[in-house]
């Protein structure tokens, strides 16, 4: 009922922020290499926001005190604005330092060799909840009306009935008849694939590129196939089974 003009507004926006992928726990090495980088391109790195990626580090079993790391990076002249791939303790340290926790974006895992990789997007998701990406295995038939969502790969040993829907952020394997809807790479992973023993799907989709049953040529139906994206086009290819 107030006549006060609208004082604020929420909008969704995407930023490009450098991600710092660490592969050593040696703080001296990190500091040295960071200083070298900043020296190479001070315009770019000075006061730049930065997301810390600890995935590689934790995978290798190294430990890292986030508060020490953050202090070091601030000394070099950059502003840590997020952390991802950390363990529970590291995430908690980050939140204590008022640094948001992001989840791992699968689209760029392949580029993790580079020391600094630009992030495509850094949308904040639920803080402190780290996704444990693993394979989901299902041995029971997926019936009409059922919906399965896998955060990683999805492997199904039984049939997927017409009217059922299976979704995975990664690949989908169906070692039986696929008669329902199958959507792989639902968070945008264009390298995701669908594999099935008997293609009779109502809909197949990889990273949002889909085909409905009507578009499925009889040549590819009712046989083992794999489905993947190539130049934004869905390719359905026979799988040769050797007996």
């Amino acid at each position, binding site marked *: 009922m107030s006549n006060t003009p609208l004082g604020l507004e929420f909008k969704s926006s995407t930023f490009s922020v450098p991600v710092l992928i660490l592969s050593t726990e040696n703080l001296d090495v990190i500091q040295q290499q960071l200083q070298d980088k900043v020296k190479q391109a001070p315009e770019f790195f000075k006061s730049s926001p930065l997301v810390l990626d600890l995935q590689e580090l934790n995978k290798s079993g190294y430990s890292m005190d986030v508060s020490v790391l953050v202090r070091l990076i601030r000394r070099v002249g950059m502003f840590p604005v997020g952390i991802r791939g950390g363990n529970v303790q590291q995430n908690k340290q980050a939140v204590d330092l008022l640094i948001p926790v992001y989840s791992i974006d699968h689209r760029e895992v392949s580029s993790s060799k580079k020391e600094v990789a630009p992030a495509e997007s850094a949308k904040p998701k639920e803080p402190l909840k780290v996704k444990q990406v693993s394979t989901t295995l299902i041995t*029971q*038939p*997926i*019936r*009409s*009306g*059922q919906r399965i969502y896998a955060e990683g790969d999805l492997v199904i040993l039984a049939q997927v*009935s*017409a*009217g059922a829907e299976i979704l995975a952020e990664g690949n989908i394997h169906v070692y039986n008849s696929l008669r329902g809807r199958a959507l792989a790479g639902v968070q945008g992973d264009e390298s995701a694939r669908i594999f099935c023993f008997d293609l009779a799907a109502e809909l197949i989709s990889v990273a949002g590129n889909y085909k409905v049953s009507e578009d499925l040529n009889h040549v590819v139906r009712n046989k083992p196939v794999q489905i993947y994206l190539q130049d934004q086009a869905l390719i359905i290819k026979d799988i040769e089974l050797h007996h």
Partner: protein
Amino acid sequence: MSRIIVVTSGKGGVGKTTTSAAIAMGLAKKGHKTAVIDFDVGLRNLDLIMGCERRVVYDFINVINGEATLNQALIRDKNCNLLYILPASQTRDKDALSQEGVGKVLDELRKEFKYIVCDSPAGIERGAHLAMYFADDAFVVTNPEVSSVRDSDRMLGLLSSKSRRAEQNEEPIKEFLLLTRYSPERVKLGEMLSVDDVQDILSLHLLGVIPESKSVLNASNSGMPVILDEKSDAGQAYDDIVARYLGEDRPHRFIEDKKGFFRNLFGG
């Protein structure tokens, strides 16, 4: 140990009530004390098929609401004294069913009965959900046509995810397929799905095939479960089903076209 059997399908008009009446009668005739419950509150039919519609005083909802005791509401069948019917209310709707109330009635029945057959209403709403929720075994009744098969598939999904056994992580409900209104002639003409087609879609253990038969309609009209018509093919088919459910090994008799079989045999 008593077993709760739900007779369900998703789709209407496929023969759930006929099947409930027939197998309840079959189990009782084999010497097992059996109760059959009509879950189709508001559209009660079981009492008609069982021929006890004129003896209904209290119903399932009265028992749930504590307005009558279970013994007051149970109707003893006039053909078999081991069979009891718990009719549905015709004047109430399915909202009158509560999970807690249904559970209490079933617990009480378990103390006295070997088998409790729950005749599910069509659909996947409250009545159908509560009919299957407490089940140990499920008889999924399907007609050999695509929409019925699809609905059965949906129901199988609910059985494996929304039942008490699923929610409490117990051994899953045992599911059996009953194919009703089957006509081998029409399968041959390509007008109907075959047993193999249906099993391919549902991948479910086939308990039996009930042939399309006039005797089913006659039985319904006369208020006698069709299993009592021992001369009819449908009656025999239900008898086989009950025997198979109880562990007997009986060959399937009604999948093949009999006329065709003899024609083939004599080269006609």
